[in-house]
């Protein structure tokens, strides 16, 4: 039987990918950010997930305004890195796990969450930067990846509660898959940041740290945070943090916090990172 063994939360700032791709992670600006991922790289090389179910948002790369799915699951054999305006990142193609992805799609839809099934899409920094942060620069990603795109671009995104509950449904789906697979679920994006308008650059460290605590210890309370609070307190793009709740919903109610990292700034953003394991 497949099982979800651990969850990872991480920001997915595009400049992190650029820092790795151009080899400047040792520079004083970047070093403290990447230091916080050293534990994570060791940890994941020991845990060796077969599949990562990767919750992220597309940043107007695969989905234009022609089609805006709230939850979309990638069921393809492979996904290429997107050209986001400056050429695709020099990272390997992402290999999917169509058997498990289709199984999850069917199971989750039958649990009343209406997923959009995607058979072809490119994946942008939202998905490839977390892989880079956790795995470095391998020639091939060491596991299969199921992309799960959440709309956080067009208002309104799904509520925190909806995200937590879809995470619970994903867990049930994974646990009903016959093959013996070690599956991790990652929630990406955040933490506080605003990229637009005269208020750009907003960072709310107190709020972010409370959210980290709440996500670990009281996910239901975190799920009850309304959209307006994310927008007002954490910046217009801070609302990406609802995606961390999908990850949290797929884990046990009580989890072990293996690792935490928080750093300001990375580009315009507060970097947050958690590793959680089921007990």
């Amino acid at each position, binding site marked *: 039987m497949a099982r979800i063994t651990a969850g990872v939360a991480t920001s997915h700032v*595009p400049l992190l990918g650029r820092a790795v791709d151009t080899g400047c992670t040792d520079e004083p600006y970047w070093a403290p950010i990447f230091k916080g991922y050293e534990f994570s790289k060791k940890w994941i090389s020991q845990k060796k997930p077969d599949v990562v179910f990767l919750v992220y948002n597309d940043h*107007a790369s695969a989905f234009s305004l022609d089609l805006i799915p709230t939850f979309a699951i990638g069921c393809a054999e492979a996904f290429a890195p997107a050209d986001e*305006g400056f050429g695709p990142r020099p990272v390997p193609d992402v290999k999917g796990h169509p058997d498990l992805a289709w199984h999850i799609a069917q199971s989750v839809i039958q649990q009343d969450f209406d997923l959009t099934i995607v058979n072809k899409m490119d994946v942008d920094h939202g998905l490839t930067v977390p892989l880079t942060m956790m795995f470095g620069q391998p020639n091939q990603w060491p596991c299969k990846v199921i992309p799960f795109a959440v709309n956080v671009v067009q*208002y309104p995104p799904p509520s925190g509660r909806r995200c937590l509950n879809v995470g619970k449904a994903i867990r049930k789906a994974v646990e009903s898959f016959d093959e013996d697979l070690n599956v991790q679920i990652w929630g990406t994006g955040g933490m506080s940041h605003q*990229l*637009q308008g*005269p208020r750009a650059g907003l*960072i709310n460290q107190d*709020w972010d740290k409370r959210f980290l605590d709440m996500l670990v210890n009281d996910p239901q309370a975190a799920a009850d945070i309304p959209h307006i609070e994310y927008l007002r307190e954490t910046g217009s793009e801070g609302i990406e943090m609802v995606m961390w709740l999908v990850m949290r919903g797929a884990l046990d109610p009580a989890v072990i916090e293996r690792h935490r990292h928080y750093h300001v700034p990375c*580009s315009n953003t507060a970097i947050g990172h958690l590793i959680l394991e089921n007990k």
Partner: protein
Amino acid sequence: MALEKPYLDIPGTTVFDADMSRQGYSLNQFCMSLMQAENRKRFHTDEGKYLDEWQMSDAQKQAVMDRDYNRMIELGGNIYFLAKIFSADGKSFVHAAAKMTGMTEDNYQAMMNAGGRPPKGNRYIGRSD
């Protein structure tokens, strides 16, 4: 009944809601087209001519040519779509963000290095908390 917009009292912030999205459809779709190298080249060769291929308002086209991101947002642009324009120009998110705040890139970067823009005084229009 009008759509509820509880976020209108947040200063310096435009939420990309239904009304903005409808207004900005063509502007944002133009931005998407810059994900292809040949379109980037055509755009940079003659911006006005390339923009005329899109059903955008004159104000939207002018804002693009001026690289006035606040104006583009006001006219329905979404920052993740607009990012294709400054990425195609070889500029960073920090460059664009600094521009939108009216700060120099150095001053903006210094603010970020000092912990970012504080939430205090930036939560509600006309309030100091």
